[in-house]
């Protein structure tokens, strides 16, 4: 073979087989690798949501106003709907003078309820209680209720809270 431009039939067939085999291998191998690693390459489609809670004027002063919303997470062919809730507590007429608490107990995640007679949020699971600012009064929770700090009132007077969907 060395120094010769001629190639015998046997080597030609070997070479062609190797070349065609490589082409087939690469053209299936690259998509196959892409197929396996594609979930890691999807850029996180986390959405910024401004979720309407209600018209601010309709929310009573001083009294915790409950709201709830559902966020659906899609993982491939599976959809999981998670419910969330909270309370808006207006302290004065001002647009920004309010506290928005999550109703998710910081102990084990049960939904707390407002109890007017004890002036506290009470968790039905372990009887924990929180005050109007979300601070723990009694019970096992390790920290105060979560607070939605990012909120705004739009032109129509609707109160919106900012949700970061992962």
């Amino acid at each position, binding site marked *: 073979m060395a120094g010769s431009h001629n190639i015998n039939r046997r080597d030609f067939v070997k070479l062609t087989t190797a070349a065609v085999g490589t082409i087939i291998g690469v053209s*299936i191998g690259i*998509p*196959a690798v*892409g*197929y*396996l690693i*594609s*979930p890691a*390459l999807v850029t996180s489609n986390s959405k910024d949501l401004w979720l309407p809670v209600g018209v601010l004027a309709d929310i009573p002063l001083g009294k915790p106003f409950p709201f709830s919303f559902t966020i659906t997470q899609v993982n*491939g*062919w*599976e959809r999981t709907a998670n419910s969330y809730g909270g309370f808006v507590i207006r302290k004065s007429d001002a647009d920004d003078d309010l506290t928005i608490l999550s109703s998710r107990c910081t102990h084990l995640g049960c939904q707390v309820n407002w109890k007017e007679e004890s002036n506290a949020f009470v968790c039905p699971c372990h009887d924990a209680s929180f005050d109007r600012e979300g601070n723990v009064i009694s019970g096992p929770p390790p920290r105060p209720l979560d607070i939605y700090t990012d909120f705004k009132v739009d032109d129509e007077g609707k109160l919106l809270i900012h949700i970061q969907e992962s």
Partner: protein
Amino acid sequence: MWKKIYEWLDERLGLKSIYDSTLDRPEPRGNWWNTLGSASLFLFILQGVTGIFLSVNYTPSPDHAYDSIQYIMTGVSFGWLIRGIHHWGASLMVLVVFIHMLRVFITASYKYPRELTWLVGVGLLLVTVFMGFTGYLLPWNQKAFWATTVGTQIAGSVPLAGDFILKVLRGGSSLSALTLQRFFAAHIWILPAILVALIGVHLYLIIKHGESQFPDKED
């Protein structure tokens, strides 16, 4: 360096003799029709590889089977390609295996000493067809559902044992989640295992006896 590694391996594994007896064995004069067996083997490997990749994202449950395939088609990179190859490769494999069998029949290659190769080959054709039949249900769409309803009913029309066969195929008297799970197990485990075993015997017999000479005027 590579030569040294190769020689070390060859001395212990006998690579040269494997190569000589499988890929470099003497052949009678033939033509392209002789390559259909290798084509069938290639398609089987292709189906195996693409099938393994599909199983990464497919789930054999009536709730999610259809949706998981929609996800493969639209949500995963190259999912459409992997499934497309598996889908068309399945039809092509049945076709190629059948034409291969036809060639063996026409050139009378099934005669002594290759009767067993032929018999194993008939088994391979049947298993290939069953692979097609079980795979057809997995998308769990209307076509799949009714094709399997009819197909299993046909199997159920066998005299005496019909009802028994129908129930074994469906995992009960009606087509249900049990049928889907059963067909999935058959499609990815039971039938491929049989197929691999039969291919092994088939290849051994071909290498042992060599390919047959085409018959001429005297034969």
